[in-house]
């Protein structure tokens, strides 16, 4: 997995609450068997009209936001379907950091598996930073110090230490879990004894 350490970018502000994963990437793009190539269809129905033409006043179609790596957005981002195609599409578009006041659980977890940092800030801070985004100036996000720096201001954010470590080091969590193979094995043996119907083969 790609590491996330720090980032500098002009942020894009999308002031919609409850953005669901259908909105991030609609189902017609879930027929792929790959993880890549979804960026062009990110926010498809907001970005393109019925004839497939770009809607020019949608923010991610405008310069400089079309090159943005940071998305600021309304609460409960990523609700709905568990599709990991949502973070894949964001990543493929170039967005590696999201700032919101809350996320849906599955989406939040999926971000960390793909080197995307989802930052949680309270609504007041979101307001401050989204107002700043109108200036079209770069802001920095630093995961090591857990800080967002914009102009002369800085905001600290909280993050689970284990998730932070995985992002900073780009850890493969399957490899980490496989290091505990012995424990898994003895757990399986316990299951075979205590709940034999589980392995009903």
């Amino acid at each position, binding site marked *: 997995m790609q590491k996330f350490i720090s980032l500098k970018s002009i942020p894009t502000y999308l002031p919609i609450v409850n953005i669901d994963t*259908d909105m991030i990437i609609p189902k017609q793009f879930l027929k792929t068997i790959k993880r890549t190539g979804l960026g062009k269809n990110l926010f498809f129905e907001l970005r393109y009209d019925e004839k497939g033409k770009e809607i020019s006043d949608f923010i991610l179609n405008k310069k400089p936001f079309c090159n943005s790596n940071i998305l600021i957005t309304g609460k409960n981002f990523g609700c709905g379907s568990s599709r990991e195609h949502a973070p894949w599409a964001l990543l493929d578009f170039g967005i590696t950091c999201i700032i919101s006041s809350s996320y849906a659980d599955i989406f939040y977890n999926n971000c960390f598996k793909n080197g995307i940092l989802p930052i949680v800030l309270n609504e007041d801070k979101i307001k401050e930073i989204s107002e700043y985004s109108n200036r079209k100036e770069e802001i920095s996000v630093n995961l090591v110090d857990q800080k967002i720096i914009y102009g002369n201001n800085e905001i600290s954010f909280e993050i689970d230490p284990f998730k932070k470590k995985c992002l900073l080091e780009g850890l493969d969590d*399957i490899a980490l879990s496989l290091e505990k193979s012995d424990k898994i094995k003895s757990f399986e043996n316990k299951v075979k004894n205590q709940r034999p*119907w589980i392995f009903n083969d």
Partner: protein
Amino acid sequence: MPHTLYDKIWNDHLVHEQDDGTALLFVDRHLIHEVTSPQAFEGLRNSNRKVRQPSLTLAVADHNVPTTDRSKGISDQESKIQVETLEANCKEFGIKLFGMNDKRQGIVHVTGPEQGFTQPGTVIVCGDSHTATHGAFGSLAFGIGTSEVEHVLATQTLVQKKAKNFRINVNGKLPLGVTSKDVILQIIGKIGTAGGTGCVIEYAGDLIRSLSVEQRMTICNMTIEGGARAGLIEPDEKIFNYLKGRPMSPKGSTWDRAVEVWSNLNSDDGSHFDKEVSLTAEEIIPMVTWGTSPQDVITIEGKVPNPNTEKDLDKKSSIERSLKYMGLKPDTLAKDIKIDKVFIGSCTNGRIEDLREAAKILKNKKKASHVHAMVVPGSGLVKQQAEQEGLDKIFINSGFEWREPGCSMCLAMNADKLKPEERCASTSNRNFEGRQGRGGRTHLVSPGMAAAAAIAGNLDDVRKYQN
């Protein structure tokens, strides 16, 4: 210390726990389907890993399969590749698969319980957010992303942090014509789509206990629409009777041992819940959604909200946005909303009891002439059962199309979808923008309400149609 049902299942599945509370949880049951698994298998191959416990995994093709005549295969090339990829992967890694032409094929959350793969006290995962459905059996069941699917395939475990305990009590008796779908819609309206974030919900109370197994599944199914990771219900005799004799259920003396263990799966008296909400069943009325989020609910007697009476600016703009998308004027009466389509099916309401409920309303009645209506059974076995009971005839005689099983218009990944601005009364679970087709407008309802809407041609009160 007294423990909740969720605490107990959690503790019983802990393989390892780090100091910071991050845990490795054993997974007893893993369901996979064609849409969220190909990249996981590709990941396994790329890193030369095997599936650790192929026998604990069950695969079904459901999201992408046609619901019309299947004898010619899938015409959409991409869908076809996805379904074939699932077949190839299952073969390569030794996983049991119900292919498109198997009569046991169906929506993964219908098939799992039907086969007895779903069992009390287990941890069940699937790359699908409606996995919570299986919580109706007293299991800890939740949706995961594709990277996690890969993790489960490789390790039979999942990295998790413990969620909070949230209990929702529903007591009393439901009025005639009111169903578990109305109960869960009312709950979501009450707690909001983020109300359960970070929680596992236990549904309790005498109403919940009085529900059939399938009605319980409808409730647990939509837990995700309330933002919670999982929803579960204490298992009881009804659950054990449902499971007895199913193909993958325990047999003989093992069955007796299992029931003994399952009978102890409950929340202890005095166990701690971080959050608690209560509803009275008698007060629940048939519900419909008016907007583009499952929390946008009103009763069939109610009217669409007016943004001008909303003080909170965020809420106001979100109401305006939803009304615009839905093509509705503020203060429109629910019963005045005219519909073009009716969809009965999905993992929420595509089971035999759901079809019986709709058929009961439709018997000897015709759908309105401008309405296009279809029934998509949740599985091949549901379809077969319905045909044995003659329900297919009732639907066909009222003017419905009788289809092959699958997800169909619940997410419109196959050919079944709404056209822009078409309005649908749907028994599915999501009314997001574009969910049933770009520009399509969805009103979530119970199967009986969907039947009533088909007859009336507009949203209508099912209580008027009780035969």
